[in-house]
């Protein structure tokens, strides 16, 4: 038989054909293909805001001068504060913060403008609801920034000289410093992990549960055909999900696609293989779909927490960083963010790629070894 004939009559095709029919009839899978990417995208894209901005702020301006209004403007311009109104006295501040109407309050004392005019050190006060340390940190840094900016302006006006130092920060790749830009590429990685480990793992376990795996094992279908036919449809689903997220990400969150999409699709292969390896591995342990689901979720948790998807790995204690090194997602996130946000090529990404390929080979080898064509 020629290679073409062998390919044409491979027992891989009926498996693939059957799998696609089943997928088409399974409403849950269809939902998962389209709904899951959309939900994940909106959930993570909108809800996860690690940068706290637009803190609702009330102002108690006892100075009521052009000077005090200038300070309020500078504060608002940092972007960390949204001035939602004026209050008449200290009680007004207390009530606003206690009610949750405001997270911060700016108090400008009556002698603020006079102090500025006379060249004395003027004081203003920032009151912060610090119950949530992330928002209070944003308020504190915003207040400090505003004070410096205004102080420099005042010194400049007073002495009629240019400011001695102007530090210009250029936030590359994500100039507006939006969380979504950081998170959404990661959503692709998370979705692929779910699809390949959970859904593919369950699909194999389901065949075992229903007794069809036993039936398949007595047929002459080879182990490779069996697994390829079973798993390739999920690879297709994965690429569809990935494309959907990139499209919606561009549309809704204006996520850039700076690098080569083809390179991204290519470098996704080792990640998918590695994740399928995990899914297959799970399927060799789990005796029923419930167990498979539990095992897959058990695997998802470190992926969400330790891969750098949301929390920066640099901030983690070392043991947590080591665990992260064993996760395919850790490396794939570098690929995703590298290509989408930085627009880098293979030259910059060969290290994470090599790690992905290595993990893929190990995981696949282990799970294929465990997946034997007998049932004992």
């Amino acid at each position: 038989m020629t290679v073409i004939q062998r390919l044409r009559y491979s027992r891989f095709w009926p498996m693939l054909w059957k799998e696609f029919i089943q997928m088409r009839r399974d409403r849950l899978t269809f939902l998962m293909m389209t709904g899951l990417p959309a939900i994940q995208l909106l959930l993570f894209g909108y809800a996860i805001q690690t940068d706290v901005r637009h803190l609702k702020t009330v102002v108690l301006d006892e100075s009521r001068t052009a000077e005090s209004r200038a300070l309020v403007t500078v504060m608002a311009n940092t972007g960390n504060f949204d001035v939602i109104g004026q209050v008449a006295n200290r009680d007004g501040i207390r009530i606003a913060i206690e009610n949750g109407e405001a997270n911060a309050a700016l108090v400008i004392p009556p002698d603020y403008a006079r102090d500025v005019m006379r060249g004395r050190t003027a004081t203003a006060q920032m009151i912060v609801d610090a119950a949530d340390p992330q928002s209070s940190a944003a308020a504190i840094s915003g207040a400090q920034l505003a004070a410096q900016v205004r102080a420099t302006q005042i010194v400049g006006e007073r002495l009629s000289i240019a400011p001695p130092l102007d530090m210009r920060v250029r936030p590359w790749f994500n100039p507006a410093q939006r969380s979504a830009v950081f998170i959404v590429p990661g959503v692709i990685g998370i979705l692929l992990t779910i699809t390949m480990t959970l859904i593919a793992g369950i699909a194999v376990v389901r065949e075992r549960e229903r007794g069809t795996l036993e039936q398949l094992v007595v047929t002459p279908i080879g182990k490779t055909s069996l697994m390829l036919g079973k798993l390739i449809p999920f690879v297709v689903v994965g690429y569809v999900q990935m494309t959907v997220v990139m499209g919606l990400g561009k549309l809704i969150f204006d996520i850039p696609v700076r690098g080569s999409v083809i390179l991204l699709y290519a470098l996704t292969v080792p990640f998918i293989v590695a994740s399928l390896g995990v899914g297959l591995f799970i399927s060799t342990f789990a005796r029923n779909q419930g167990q498979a689901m539990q095992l897959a979720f058990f695997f998802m948790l470190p992926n969400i927490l330790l891969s750098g998807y949301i929390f920066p790995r640099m901030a983690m204690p070392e043991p947590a960083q080591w665990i992260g090194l064993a996760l395919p997602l850790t490396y794939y996130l570098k690929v995703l963010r590298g290509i989408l946000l930085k627009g880098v090529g293979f030259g910059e990404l060969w290290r994470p790629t090599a790690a992905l390929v290595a993990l893929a080979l190990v995981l696949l080898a282990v799970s294929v070894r465990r997946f034997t064509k007998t049932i004992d």
Partner: protein
Amino acid sequence: MSSSAAAAPAAGLPPAVETVGLRKTFGPLVAVDRLDLTIHRGEVFGLLGPNGSGKTTTIRMLCGLLTPSAGTAVVVGHDVAADPEAVRMRIGYMSQRYGLYDDLTVDENIKFYATVYGLHGRARTERLEAHMRDIGITEFRSKLAGTLSGGWKQRLALACATAHEPEMLFLDEPTAGVDPAARRAFWTSIYDLAARGTTILVTTHYMDEAERCQRLAFLSRGHLIGLGTVKEILAQFKQPTIEDVFIELQRRDEGAAA
């Protein structure tokens, strides 16, 4: 049952099944022990025994689903352990759970298994049509397998297991939980297959089915304790019916366990 399908070894062909010292252990449990069994070509052979006597384990070893712990099993001329793929091409297997895809139609189930067994193109189409006619399921061809009744599922499973016209067919309690009419129809199909030269190994709990087999083997606690035609078995155990043999065996088992 026609006499032409009698238990005579076909000339030139190795026996359908030949096991020597076949043994399977699961940890400390010995499921099948030192089983020597020969099944001739074209036979309808019944494997009987109480629950846990090793029937299913034996069938699973013969199909290559389980690896024997010791001994050899040669099925349709090929060693199960050494060359499982050669065996798989030539056998059909129908488990108690049928192995059907509930979310595929009748058509698609047969087509899937036929293609997995290497049938393609017109040969496949013709075979499928003939098979569906044989089992009378043509009118349900586009129904999902999951919506069929037990009897129809059983017939569909038989069609799937025999789509490639195997030399040897293993049936593990094929009629469990099926109504009497469906059982009768099923056995008609079995005799049709046997008349065309297919060797059949069937396990069952139904005594009337046991009596339809040409030869029987009784297993008890993993051991072969009786082998022969129905008449020979009755004589060996000095019982009036196969059912009495069965009850006698179960009594002995329980006596041994106590």
